[in-house]
């Protein structure tokens, strides 16, 4: 089973993307998935977590995710103990930053840096980085196809924003693949 933990702030779409990844893997990818937020009251701007579990067989685990395979940080101001908790040796951290050098060698884990904010501003005109970060994640992880993610965006997002988000995931995915 692959377990992904998303770190963002309320309003940045971190749970939306946890859900879209699950939808891509299950509805379009033929696998099984679970997606859930950190449970509790929702507040704009407050740190929130999203979780996605993906497996070849039905997922019956209902306990919290304690060790994850991928950590995706939508907002680097959240970097700290919560991002660095529950890591395995081979957990990959994907962080949205314009200064990748800040993260080189600071932990043993592999870190993939991408300037999701810049891409989002270019394409969406707003600093909403969730689809860019999904692109980076699947480029690194390869456990869900780009096509299935595009289908999830097309069917899971409002039509008026889906098109641009497909452009955004494409660009982020290719940027990480080529790096």
């Amino acid at each position: 089973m692959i377990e992904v933990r998303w770190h963002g702030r309320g309003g940045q779409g971190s749970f939306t993307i946890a859900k879209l990844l699950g939808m891509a893997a299950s509805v379009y990818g033929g696998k099984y998935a679970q997606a859930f937020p950190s449970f509790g009251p929702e507040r704009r701007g407050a740190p929130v977590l999203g979780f996605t579990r993906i497996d070849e067989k039905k997922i019956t685990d209902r306990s919290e995710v304690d060790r994850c395979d991928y950590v995706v940080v939508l907002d680097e101001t959240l970097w700290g103990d919560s991002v660095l908790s529950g890591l395995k040796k081979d957990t990959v951290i994907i962080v949205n930053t314009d200064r990748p050098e800040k993260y080189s060698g600071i932990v043993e884990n592999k870190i993939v840096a991408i300037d999701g904010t810049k891409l989002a501003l270019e394409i969406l005109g707003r600093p909403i980085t969730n689809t860019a970060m999904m692109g980076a994640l699947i480029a690194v992880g390869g456990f869900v196809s780009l096509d299935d993610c595009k289908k999830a965006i097309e069917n899971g997002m409002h039509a008026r924003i889906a098109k641009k988000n497909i452009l955004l995931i494409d660009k982020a995915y290719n940027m990480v693949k080529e790096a």
Partner: protein
Amino acid sequence: MGKKLFISGNDAVAEGVRLAKPHVISAYPITPQTIAVERLSEMVEDGSLRAEYMHVESEHSALACAMGVSSVGARAFTATSSQGLLYMAECLPYASGARMPIVMMNANRALATPWNIYGDQMDSMFLINSGWIQVYVEDAQEALDMMIQAYKIAEHEEVMTPMMVNLDGFVLTHTYELVEIPEQNKVDEFLPPINMTKQKMDVDNPKSLCISAGNDFNMEFKIKQEMDMKNSVTVIEGVDKEFGDKFGRYYNGMLEEYRCEDAQVILITTGSVTGTSRIVVDALREEGKKVGLLKLRYLRPFPAEGISDTVKNAKVVGVIDKNISFGFEGTIFTNVNSALITLEKTPKTINFIGGLGGRDITKKNIDEMFESLLKEASGEKQERIQYMNVRCMG
């Protein structure tokens, strides 16, 4: 095969209710049930569910309204949680005593004080004596399927009893997963429109409903209610079998045993913790340990015979309770012990109380429970009541 959607437990409830075609939905929103009733109000608004949506002023009114609907022979749905269920409480025995086949979703949530919006089963356990059938589901698919089964069971002329479908707050209501949506025409075949001929307000056949009965007749009403609740087991099992034949998903009626063959120790669960426990059972079986799992689907009627029959050869039985009956023990534990006392050779029993106010029950916790059960089985005395994953003990 119906289409598959990636949706939450709350969405699944709403989809199931839409397929069951109630005439009226009366509800008051409360976390973590809110999304279920929001979806239903959207479905009424967009015309995909031809029902009346009544946004009432309180939970008490929500059920009172559902009783009005049911009394004219129409299909009623309501949903609540926690303090909302308790606020509604006065109406619960009214509805069950009047034999109204209302279906309610309850999102299991903690009770104040301390105020807490997370999941446990204190709320529905509070109302276990309300005369409602109580079923507990394990995932979103079962939630959807039970909305459809619930009307068929509740409206059966030999049952005529309201039914509460419980799903764990947040862990089920707010988790998204793959759910198959049955086709409407197949649901229509399985669940025809409600047809209450004997017991409704009818100008051509006037009668009195919600009557009073003094000491000359009251007891007869209550004993007949009890007999029908007990006899509903046959209907519950029959409806589940028919549902499986039609839609390909069987839930084994009252309870489901998982790897209980030759098990030395068996853990009894309800709701979502069952899924996590399956993983631990599989892992321990790999190690050659003789462990099994028994999922209780229904708490009322209580599957006493099924429980005793499943665990009769086990040495030790554990019971997970996400509730406490203060001053005694977990409510399910009390019920299970009462069922087991009928056996000639009674297994030892241990109560694991956990998951209160949303506290996680981890795979490690469940592993510890099995370890304790196995120790007891090998003669090493264990605490009879154990509190899991808590800081204030020892």
